[in-house]
Each structure stands twice: as structure tokens, then as C-alpha cells.
């Protein structure tokens, strides 16, 4: 049996410190773990958590947060292990169900036919992964043989608490068991968590987490992660993050449409052997067209602009990272030792323009209420979409992070953000993405938060450089790629 690349671990609901099942208190923050294990439902808990709580005969306690952002990434060869964890009915199982993205898929699978195949599919994908006993991250070649979707484990869940699914839905506000078909509690009227409120997706080599945050009533961010293979059989992974413009009509639809269409376009182009940079520009233009088209689909809400969103995307193939963006969603590079952590994108924003023009210092510009006004976006109102791209070939292991401003608002500089990115982000990317989303939530979660991570391990020598696309990174500066901004050819 293939070993799973990561151990299924528990972590502290309060501080995410790794804890053992037998631990009574967290070593880091001292919280009583037994109390949280006996958990009832978090106020935001979905039905699975409530069901788990019911199995444990524990009264729902809004204070007992069944948080457990631990996760297994990479998957085990045997999906039954996961299912077993989700259905054992023990306190630990409840923890797993609530905390592990894949474990969460298991109890959902019990009630929801779509859940099980995903978990199983991932297990199958993982089964062919070469043994990762060292814990090093390896791009999962066998996964490429299948459609990217097969490996996708959709987790329409709140990882802090549980998975909403099945029929026996319980109101997250008042505990009433009467939820109307339109998603509101029949007693207290509270809107129930929606699938997009919290989403996670993980493939070997790329993963993403998106959360509504605390202050917005819906998640207007969207992301897509995908993996495929180049015509020569080498792997390629793709991540796209889009942030809907709140002042526009239907920003949630705009971001979803953009993320989906860009990801699709990238896959197609990469499979066809197109160079990543050219593919990136085309994908962003495809997404722009798709968002443009949304404007015509429905009557526009009066006094609101056409649907619009930002986009940032990263592609990793042949050892080369290619980033493209429009707007103020960002990409960062974090080498494993975090020295030389770097922002890869330059915002299309008012603040950036002010700084570029020398009119304000960066601090002044970001303190201004207009700081977040974006100067570039996808949408019918955009005069001209100019995708920016950059690419580099990392020479050391590290992680590429792309995110919406819901994250970087709380740690703007690369160094500040590097301090928040867990040290093992490259080997446990989904857990890292969860921790980062949680980090933003804990600091107020003023905006929707979306994070996607692409672990990079240049163990294999990078592909030979093709003559028409010279690498933008020059040999010496191993840890700090130079960034070359490019105006896209639109």
C-alpha cells in the first residue's frame, strides 16, 4: 500500500498547533481540547457537524467550536480509511469530519452521493502517486492521466466546523430543523451557509481555499485549480483567483465565470502545447469576454455597473512559473526559507498609480480611502483589458501564492505575508491555504478571502528554454527572481 504523503493529524481548534489525539490540552495555547472534541456545532456549522454532534449526543453549544483546520493532502491509497474516519462515530471521528477536507468529504458521501465518488476519485488518483516517504512534494504524474476534475475533491464545507449536506438541515442560527428550499430558516429567517461561503479544492500540485469572511454576506471571490499534461507528457498545474467588484451587478457570477473560463482556456492551450505566457494572455482575454457577455444576460440593476472582477492566475509547468493578472489580486513567491520572498504582481489600483507617479508614499497611498479603487478589471465597463504577465524559473523549493485582497489586506508586504505562510506550506499546501484564510478571518475577515497555492520543487532540472520565450530569471539570483512586467498583447 502506498503511504500517504502526510499523516492525518489533528490540530488545535484555537491556534492550529498540531496535537495528538490523546492530548488533553494544546501545548501552544493551553485550550482544553477535550471540551472542543465533545463539540457541538459551531454557530456556522453545517448539518454534518450537527449530525456528528447528534451521534455524540452532545448538545449544540455555540461556544464549542469544532474547528480543526488540519487536513490530509495528497491522499491515501485507500478511500475506506477516510470513510472510516468519517463514520466511526467517535469523538475523534467527529474531529476528523469537521477538520479534514477529505474526511469531511466522507460523511458527506454517506448522505450525499456526490461526496463519495469525489473522495474515492481522489484516493484513486493518489494511489498511483509515487511513494512520498520523504514528505517531499512530488507532482503527481499519474493524476495527469485522468481528467483534472476526477482529482478534484470539492468540499462545499466550512472547514472550521463541518459539512452542510443531506436533508436533515439544521439552522445555523437557531437550531431549528426547518430550512426552506430557498435556503432560509423558517423560524429565524437566517440565510443558511451556501456552497460558495466556503470552498476548498485540492489536487496534487495545486489547491485553493475561498471563504466569505465575516463582513460580507456572500462570497464574491471565486477560484479554479486544475492539472493537466503538456503534449510531451510533462505535468502542468493551473490556479485562477478572481475577486468580484462589489459595486457592480452580480459580482459573484462575474468572478465564477472568469475563474472557470480562464482555467479552461489555460488547460486547453497548455494541452495544445502553447507557451504558458501566450496561453495566459489568451486565457485572461477569454475570461474578459465571458464577463463582458454577462452584462447582456440579465437586466442590469439600476445604478450599478456591469458585472466585473479582477483576475490573477498562475501556471506551473516545466519548472517555470507564469503569472498573469488584471486588477489588485496578487501573486507572491515564497521560497522555503522565506528569504527572498517576493510579490510577483503590480496592482492595477489607485494606490499603485499614486506611488508610481511619485505623488504619495506607499503607506500614504494605502491609507487613503481610494486605495482599493482598481484601475483595471474584467467587465463590460472596462475600456481596454491589458493582461500583465511575468514568469520565472525558481531555483529553490518554495510556494507560489495567489490571492484576493481579502488576504493581503492583512499582510500587504511579501515579508509580512511570509511570516504568516506556514513553514510547511509547500508540503501541506491545503492546510497552509486554510490557515491563511483563517488568518484573514481572525483579523476581521472584512472581505472575501481566496488563496491558492502551487508548491514548487525544482528537483528535476527545468525544461530547456525555448528560443522564442527566454526565461526572465537570470542564473545568479537564485532566491529573488527579477520581475518583468509585460503588457499583454490584446
Amino acid at each position, binding site marked *: 500500500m502506498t503511504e500517504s504523503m502526510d499523516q492525518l493529524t489533528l490540530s488545535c481548534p484555537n491556534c492550529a498547533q498540531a496535537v495528538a489525539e490523546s492530548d488533553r490540552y494544546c501545548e501552544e495555547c493551553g485550550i482544553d481540547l477535550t471540551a472542543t472534541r465533545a463539540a457541538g456545532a459551531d454557530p456556522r456549522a453545517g448539518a454534518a457537524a450537527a449530525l456528528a454532534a447528534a451521534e455524540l449526543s452532545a448538545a449544540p453549544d455555540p461556544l464549542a467550536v469544532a474547528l480543526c483546520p488540519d487536513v490530509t493532502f495528497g491522499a491515501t491509497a485507500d478511500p475506506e480509511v477516510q470513510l472510516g474516519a468519517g463514520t466511526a462515530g467517535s469523538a475523534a471521528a467527529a474531529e476528523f469530519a469537521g477538520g479534514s477536507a477529505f474526511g469531511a468529504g466522507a460523511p458527506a458521501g454517506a448522505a450525499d452521493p456526490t461526496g463519495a465518488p469525489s473522495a474515492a476519485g481522489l484516493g484513486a488518483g493518489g494511489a498511483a502517486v509515487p511513494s512520498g516517504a520523504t514528505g517531499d512534494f512530488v507532482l503527481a504524474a499519474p493524476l495527469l492521466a485522468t481528467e483534472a476534475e476526477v482529482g478534484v475533491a470539492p468540499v462545499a464545507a466550512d472547514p472550521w466546523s463541518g459539512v452542510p449536506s443531506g436533508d436533515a438541515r439544521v439552522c445555523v442560527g437557531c437550531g431549528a430543523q426547518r430550512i426552506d428550499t430557498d435556503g432560509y430558516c423558517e423560524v429565524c*429567517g437566517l*440565510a443558511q451557509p451556501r456552497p460558495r461561503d466556503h470552498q476548498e479544492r485540492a489536487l496534487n500540485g495545486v489547491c485553493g481555499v475561498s471563504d466569505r469572511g465575516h463582513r460580507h454576506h*456572500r462570497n464574491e471571490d471565486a477560484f479554479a485549480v486544475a492539472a493537466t499534461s503538456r503534449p510531451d507528457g510533462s505535468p502542468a498545474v493551473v490556479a485562477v483567483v478572481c475577486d468580484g467588484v462589489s459595486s457592480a451587478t452580480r459580482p459573484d457570477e462575474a468572478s465564477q465565470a472568469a475563474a472557470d473560463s480562464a482555467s479552461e482556456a489555460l488547460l486547453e492551450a497548455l494541452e495544445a502545447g502553447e507557451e504558458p505566457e501566450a496561453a495566459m494572455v489568451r486565457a485572461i482575454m477569454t475570461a474578459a469576454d465571458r464577463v463582458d457577455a454577462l452584462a447582456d444576460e440579465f437586466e442590469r440593476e439600476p445604478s450599478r455597473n456591469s458585472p466585473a472582477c479582477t483576475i490573477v492566475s498562475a501556471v506551473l509547468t516545466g519548472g517555470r512559473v507564469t503569472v498573469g493578472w488584471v486588477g489588485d489580486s496578487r501573486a507572491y513567491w515564497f521560497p522555503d526559507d522565506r528569504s527572498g520572498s517576493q510579490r510577483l504582481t503590480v496592482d492595477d489600483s489607485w494606490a499603485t498609480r499614486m506611488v508610481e507617479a511619485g505623488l504619495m508614499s506607499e503607506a500614504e497611498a494605502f491609507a487613503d480611502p481610494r486605495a482599493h479603487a482598481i484601475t483595471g478589471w474584467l467587465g463590460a465597463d472596462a475600456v481596454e483589458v491589458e493582461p500583465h504577465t511575468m514568469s520565472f524559473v525558481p531555483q529553490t523549493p518554495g510556494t507560489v501564492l495567489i490571492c484576493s485582497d481579502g488576504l493581503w489586506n492583512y499582510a500587504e508586504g511579501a515579508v509580512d505575508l511570509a511570516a504568516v505562510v506556514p513553514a510547511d506550506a509547500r508540503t501541506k499546501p491545503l492546510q497552509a491555504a486554510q490557515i491563511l484564510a483563517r488568518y484573514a478571518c481572525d483579523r476581521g475577515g472584512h472581505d472575501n478571502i481566496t488563496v491558492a497555492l502551487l508548491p514548487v520543487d525544482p528537483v528535476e532540472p527545468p525544461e530547456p528554454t525555448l528560443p522564442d520565450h527566454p526565461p526572465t530569471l537570470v542564473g545568479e539570483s537564485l532566491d529573488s527572481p527579477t520581475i518583468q512586467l509585460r503588457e499583454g498583447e490584446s
Partner: protein
Amino acid sequence: MAKLTKSNFPQFSVDIFQNAYLAQGANEVNAIVTVTATGGGTSASLPSAGYGGALDGPDAAVVIAVDCSGSMDYPPTKIRNAREATAVAIDSVRDGVAFAVVAGTHEAKEVYPGGGQLAISSPGTREEAKQSLRRLTPGGGTAIGTWLTKADQIFSTRPDVSIRHAILLTDGRNEHERPDQLQHTLDRVQGRFTADCRGVGTDWEVAELRRISSALLGSVDIVADPSGLAADFQAMMEKAMGKAVADVALRVWTPANAQVKFVKQVAPVVEDLSGRRSDAGPRAGDYPTGSWGDESRDYHVCIEVPPAGVGDEMLAGRISLVVPHPDGTSEVLSQGLVKAVWTDDLNASTKINPQVAHYTGQAELAGAIQEGLDAHRRGDLDTATAKLGKAVQLAADSGNEDTFKLLSKVVDVVDAKEGTVRFRKDVSAEDSMTLETRSTKTVRVKK
């Protein structure tokens, strides 16, 4: 039973207009609910056009109650015009519809067909009915409650008929009955039939007639010149013939710990329904809206919800239409959702929905007119001028031209924008009563 199988049962649609965004701590949710009924299909058909309803019994019943008090003879044109108008109204009754005519004084006398019955409309019965109108002769007092009671008795002979509508004409005050007697009658008959009320001349009391029409979910209007009665009666009857479904209720569900502050019809006229709520299951209440043809009405619903945290979304109200079935069950038709979303985005939370703003203004306009005319009657000219000044301003702002014209017959408008007005010295009773009667008429939002 036949009613629902007919193809003329209208389709109802519900549209909600609101700004769902609330600032932190805010707890009042306002929404305009537009209810549109289409496909009732009878409003276009001509009277006497061989209406199929005759095959399986009448689908509507109408009672015309005409004031025959002594004052109707002063001037004698009044009773003559009333007879003519009633004849025109009878001509507008569709074939197959049940109808009766009542002469109202301090008591109610059946004029046609008599015997506490309803006649079924046909060219023959309509002719007979018109002949019998000679028996509408003035003499006696006015006790409108007795007319309503008589109408109710006549309607109750045909419990199978769902659409029951009365047309009521009076020229004077309800002098031969105490107000509490009339109220008692209204409490008893409301919900059993609807009624449009008309006051002819200027000796009747607007508030009194409005109380009747409100209770019976109908319209009230003034026909100052008796010669205008015929056209008005015809229009009223045609509208009544267009009704396809009766006893429709607006059902408002609110979440636990929420309060309905008010439910008002705001178009085509302002009518506060808040006091008319009847419970309809947990946290839901029904507000009667009467009968519907092809038409559209707007309602302003105001709900107080328990405040929630920023980022929370709550369903503040579920607004649906409830239509009764002849077998006693009821059917919930299309619904709309009123939402509350708490946000720290001031841009979003401070926006007032244009529909809500408009109708808030229209309701305020109606109130200002009524208060102004009330103050004028009390001799408080300062208050009257201030109130009507405000009314002029609101009417001008909202583009309610009809009301603006009526106002300018009562006051001289110095500056409409500022609401500066002077009371006219020679205001006729007709003009001030017309203004008062039509004060509740609203216009829709300008596009």
C-alpha cells in the same frame, strides 16, 4: 367549483423592490411589493357578449344600492341622474352575472328583483330592472348600515358565487344611524363582499364614506355634478365585471422576533391594511386585498427585525398571495422575498430604494392633505397652510399631477419647490371635498 377550471383565472406575479442593505444595528426593513394579475381575461370582453359563465351558474354578483333619502330630490336632477346612472350600470352587467337593485333610506327596500333574491343578467332581466327603477323615489332618511345588511342578505342567497360586489351611492351623511351601529355592521359584513362608494353632491362626509369603502376594500369617489353619474357608474360596473378572483389575501411571513410595522396598499390608492391582519400559521398573517381583475397594485411592507451582525443575511419577510378555493382550501400563489443584509458599506446601506422613497412620499402626501383639510375645518389656518404647502411640495416632487391640480384649486401655489402656498379665499365645498376624497390617489414611480 367552476371558477377555477375557467381559463380566466389570473396569473399573479410578485415583485419586490427594496434596498436589503442595513447598517450595523439597523432593524427596519422596507419593501415595495408589486402584485400584478394578468390573464383574468374578462376585462376586455364586452358586456352581453354571451359570457360562458351562464352555463354553470353565475361567477359574480352585484348589488346596486341607491340613496333614496328625501334630500335626493333637492335638486330633483339628483334622483333623475341617479336613476339614469343605475340604468347604465345595469346595461353593463354581463350576461349570466347575478344582480339586484336596492333603494336605500333609513331602511333598505328591494327594487329588483325582490324577494331577497338575485336576478341572472340577460337582456330580458336587465330591461325589467331598468323599468323598475321608476320605483326609486326620494323620501326618508339615511341609514347606510341597513343597506349593507340588505346587500349581505341578498348575496348570501348565492354562497356559490365568489365575486360579490356592491355599488353604493349616497348624497348625505349617515344621519339615521349611530356611528357605532354602522361600525358594527361593517365589522359583520367585511370580507363577505366588496363595495365601491360614491358621494353625489357635497353634503356627504368624506371620512364616513371612506370608512365604508376601506372596510369593504373598494374605492370611494366624489361625483359632485349629478350629470357625471352615468359615466362613473358605467366605469365602476365594467371594472367590477373585470374581476376574476375574489378574497385574495397578501400573506406576510416574518421570522421569529420580528414585527410587521405596517402593510399599506400604496397604489393605485393608499390604504392601510395593518389592522386587517388575520393569523395564518406560525409567524404569518393574511391581509385582505379583495377581488382582482387584470390589474397591478403596490404594497409597502415595513418589518422590524432583530438586528444581526455585519455580514449576516436574513429573510425579513416572505410575501405571497393566497387565493381561496371554493372547497374551502386555499392556494399560495407566487411569492417574493424581502431580505435584510447587514453591511458596513455605508454606500450600500444609506441608499433608499427609489420605490420605497416614492411611496413613502405618496403616503405622506395623502396624510398631509387630510391633516391640512382637517385643520382648515377646525379653523386652524396656520397648520392647514403648512400641511397643504408640504402636500404641494410632495405632489410636485413626485410628479403626481392630478393631486397637484386638485391642490391648486384649494391653495394658491406661490412656490411649489419650497411648498409656499396661500389658502384661497373662495374655496368651494366641491373642490375641497374632491381634494380630500382623492388625496389617497398615488402615481407610480417615474421611469
